[in-house]
């Protein structure tokens, strides 16, 4: 089920396609993400998720089709998109040699925030997370680093935040605390676009899509999809949809 047409969309993708030579990584995908929605973007390795995310974050132009992110066109306004979105990934998010406070100031500078604004948001962020500005990021356990990285990605108050496997390897309690930060951001109206390999986390999303070989194989609220496909869990649905393509791409 897609959102009602009257609803404001944070992301609108129409027949979005990206080819690399003869290989079609993203193959005519169409979907909307509503403002303030927690949208889970799932798929097997090599199904085209990373390519789609690179297009939606303004890093890669599509081959055909259209997409608007935070109201901006991915072909002509990618620089605007980069300013309006937040991004964090499991692989790189913070400078480990810098302190917590230095990382926040650096990001504030990149996004042209005034010193006063950075100071005010830093105070709020650190008290919410229970972190000390003088701590070197290197000294933080992974889960804390990821919670900080998420908060830093929200520093410039983006309308959409893209999270690429943000909880990979994080302990089970901290992983859940991370999801509470996601819920809080969504409750404030921030749209959250998230990928994960934890199938229980797919259940935490308002809606999910499952990419299969460049296309969207399923799209809807987890409960609707489970009844539509008559499966007990999203894990089961994922395996059913994504099975033996076993592609070597990507």
């Amino acid at each position, binding site marked *: 089920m897609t959102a009602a047409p009257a609803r404001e969309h944070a992301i609108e993708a129409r027949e979005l396609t990206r080819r690399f030579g003869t290989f079609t990584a993203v193959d005519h995908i169409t979907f909307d993400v509503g403002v303030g929605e927690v949208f889970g973007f799932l*798929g*097997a*390795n*090599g*199904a085209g998720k990373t390519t789609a995310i690179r297009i939606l974050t303004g890093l890669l132009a599509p081959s055909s089709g259209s997409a608007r992110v935070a109201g901006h066109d991915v072909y002509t306004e990618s620089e605007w998109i980069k300013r309006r979105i937040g991004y964090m990934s*499991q692989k790189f998010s913070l400078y480990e040699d810098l302190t917590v406070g230095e990382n926040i100031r650096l990001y504030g500078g990149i996004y042209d925030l005034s010193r006063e604004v950075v100071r005010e948001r830093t105070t709020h962020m650190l008290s919410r*997370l*229970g*972190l*000390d500005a003088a*701590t070197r990021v290197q*000294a*933080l*356990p*992974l*889960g*804390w680093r990821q919670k900080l990285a998420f908060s830093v990605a929200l520093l410039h108050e983006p309308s959409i935040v893209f999270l690429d*496997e943000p909880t*990979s*390897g*994080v*302990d*089970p*309690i*901290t992983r*859940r*605390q991370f*999801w*509470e930060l996601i*819920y809080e951001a*969504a*409750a404030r109206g921030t749209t959250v676009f998230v990928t994960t*390999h*934890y*199938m*229980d986390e797919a*259940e*935490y999303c308002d809606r999910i899509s499952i990419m299969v070989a460049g296309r969207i194989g399923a799209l809807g609220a*987890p*409960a609707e999809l489970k009844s539509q496909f008559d499966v007990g*869990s999203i*894990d089961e649905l*994922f*395996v059913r949809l*994504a*099975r033996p393509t*076993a*592609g*070597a*791409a*990507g």
Partner: protein
Amino acid sequence: MNAVTVEALSKRFADVVALDAISLEIAPGELFGIIGPDGAGKTTLFRILVTLSVPDAGRATVLGRDVVTDLWELRRRVGYMPGRFSLYPDLSVEENLSFFASVFGATIEAQHDLIGPIYDQLAPFKDRRAGALSGGMKQKLALCCALVHRPEILFLDEPTTGVDAVSRRELWELLDRLRNTGLTIVVSTPYMDEADRCGRVALIQRGKLLGIDVPDRIAASFGRPLFAVRAAERYRLLIATREFANAATVFPFGDVLHYTDRRDGVPPERIARELREHLQARGFADAEVQETRPTIEDTFMARMGEPERAA
């Protein structure tokens, strides 16, 4: 003789205690899981067991041989698949495998009965550069390379991390098949739901063991009534459930919340009824509360106590 014996093994890096007096035993032919998040000490333990690192204190034997003094013999007899992709990205699939075989004086053909079922899935890509394979295929190639000298014990460090749910399932099916050949397999994972694929598991967190047992008994050792709470508006439900005066723990868990009560000795039916009434009074007309079976992840969270604090 045990396949692995670990006695009070400790290792520290600067001010981080990676392993804190760990002891465990693994029998020949077991599929043994080491379950824990990043930073638990899994990789440190594996590196010591495959002779790539030495402990600060304690001792360990693998196949009856000491991991510090008998390293040259052990290196021929163990197979190790590191967590990070460690093959040559510029060599093809076939070249990588031939290289690892030749280092040990083996040939791919002679090992076909062992690696064939895995290698056959890679065969269509044998001329592809290893660096250009998908995550799942890389793991299969790495597994072939770790098996090509016919080790007596196989150590796999997080073979399923960052791999999608389908490839993970396939990898566990391969491990099942390998175990049926009698091979001892020690595998680590941060995914708690994979514990059920192992014969026995050790839960590990911040260098300490939280328990060792068969998966079912670990789950059953949770020891308190556990409830699944369900309603349409999940985030509001989470907050409202935490506000129940008798709540001990409330965690999101798949499509429900898992709840424990702080009172001892109260019948589960009464807890469920009181919590349901609390939620209905908060406007959750659709709230359902049912007793549910704990999983390994519930036990892990209960035993890990407080999550890691920021330094």
